[in-house]
């Protein structure tokens, strides 16, 4: 057993940010694929502006949990409140407008190849404005083009706005994907192994960008990663998933890499 596991319902980790509203609140989340139970009752509260690292071994259900939060995967049971709105019974239209406020960054950047970086970033405004003018940068309004360029500048890529994204490096592509998330003017960013396919230097740059966004713009961040060093360094709080439940939930400051290893022991 891991020494710093807190009793269920403990206030401490969320309490790092006393009085802040809870941007994410999940209760009793369950998900199975066929007979395989991946999530068996996950409770999760994330207050505004907190950076949470989600760790766990391969197949522990980290990606599934993040996807369930936005109903990219439909949970089997449980409830999720995002930005104080219950997403369970939402109709497509409402769900879209909620998704608009949550940036999702994937391990694979998932940019649209053959389009330039600016067009890809513009797509971030899709849910806010359902306008065909957002399909390509050449059609977009100057206001949107300018905002997209600002987003690219925030990730240090103002100079590649016109380059096709399939000519960019992995690190640059991931930063464009973050810029696309920023174009959403997000309140929350969920990032599933955002740096797993990047080299250490590029990975560090990406995580620094995330950290700065959180500190400066008050965005709430939940990210998964397999590097304990990064999990500790770039988060306020670490959550460990094992066997489909949360087994560890503690402020990063109170943890060491050694104390986290237990989460990877076979369940």
């Amino acid at each position, binding site marked *: 057993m891991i020494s710093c596991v807190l009793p269920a319902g403990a206030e401490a980790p969320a309490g790092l940010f006393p009085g802040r509203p809870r941007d994410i609140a999940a209760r009793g989340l369950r998900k199975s694929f066929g007979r395989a139970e991946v999530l068996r009752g996950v409770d999760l509260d994330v207050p505004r502006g907190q950076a949470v690292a989600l760790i766990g071994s391969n197949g522990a259900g980290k990606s599934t949990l993040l996807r369930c939060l936005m109903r990219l995967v439909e949970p089997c049971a449980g409830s999720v409140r995002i930005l104080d709105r219950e997403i369970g019974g939402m109709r497509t239209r409402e769900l879209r407008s*909620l*998704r*608009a406020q949550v*940036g*999702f960054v994937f391990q694979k950047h998932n940019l*649209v*190849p053959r389009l330039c970086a600016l067009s890809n970033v513009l797509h971030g405004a899709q849910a806010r404005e359902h306008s065909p003018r957002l*399909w390509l940068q050449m059609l977009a309004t100057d206001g949107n083009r300018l905002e997209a360029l600002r987003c690219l500048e925030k990730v240090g890529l103002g100079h590649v706005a016109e380059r096709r994204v399939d000519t960019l490096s992995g690190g640059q592509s991931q930063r464009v994907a973050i810029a696309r998330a920023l174009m959403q003017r997000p309140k929350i960013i969920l990032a599933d192994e955002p740096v797993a396919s990047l080299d250490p230097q590029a990975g560090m740059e990406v995580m620094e960008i995330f950290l700065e966004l959180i500190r400066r713009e008050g965005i709430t961040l939940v990210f998964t990663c397999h590097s304990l060093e990064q999990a500790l360094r770039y988060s306020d709080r670490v959550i460990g998933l094992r066997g489909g439940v949360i087994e560890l939930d503690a402020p990063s400051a109170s943890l060491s890499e050694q104390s986290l290893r237990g989460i990877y022991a076979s369940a």
Partner: protein
Amino acid sequence: MRRPETRPPGTAGDGVVREPSQVDHRRLPIRFARLGPLGYLGSVLFLAFFVSALQGTQFSLAEIARGAPYMVTLLSEMFPPSLERIGAVSLALLETFQMALVGTVFGVLASLGLGVLATRSLTPGVLVHQCSRMLIALFRTVPDLIWALIFVVLVGLGPFAGTLAIMIDTIGFCGRFFAEAMEEVDKGPQEALAAIGASRLGVICCAVFPAALPSFIGTALFSLEKATRSSVVLGLVGAGGIGIELKVSMDMFMYSQASTIIILVFALVLLVERLSSRLRQRII
């Protein structure tokens, strides 16, 4: 021929590379798989049908030999090509290409819409998916000449009927390949757009169309080539274009005029093929 073994057996795995002539031929796989009873029956039936088909088509080398001298006469009458009606013929050729172009463009546009409905991952429902697939299959399997006959009845003689026939034929061809191209597109960007909260149309236009674009353009150019060839023939049923000119000159034994038309058609088709393969290379 098999040479006698120069080594004792069991030295095959000793790592020594042997000359090909030293390879033990018994180890080689057999060249032909033996036919089962069903395969045997099938081959016999096929051969029997083929022989009867030779009869049915009155295939005869003698007939070819008898026709050969006329071929020489025909060719000599065709040359030199006559430039008498070159103006009218050129206009008809232009009309032919116009039919091909307009029919292809509208056909491709319609295929984009129908193709989306026929793509499993994008279709709004199973029924819509099945219906659009069936429609595309119908357009593809009925030959263009028959569509031309139908449209001549519907809209009257002239190039418009031919254009519509080409459009339908193009939908049959492009609709299927567009749908296949869209099914193969990377799902990642589509999921990303869905996660942003984009509408279905947004996902299709932002993530699917751009990714499938090279394939779309390749297919569209192929179908322009195809349309150019078939627009030549559609004139035979009165659906516009140069075909009718060719038929008239052949029927009236004006072979020197016919040869002009054939040469012009050849030049047009070749030009379109060349241009389209250039463009394809440029884009893909």
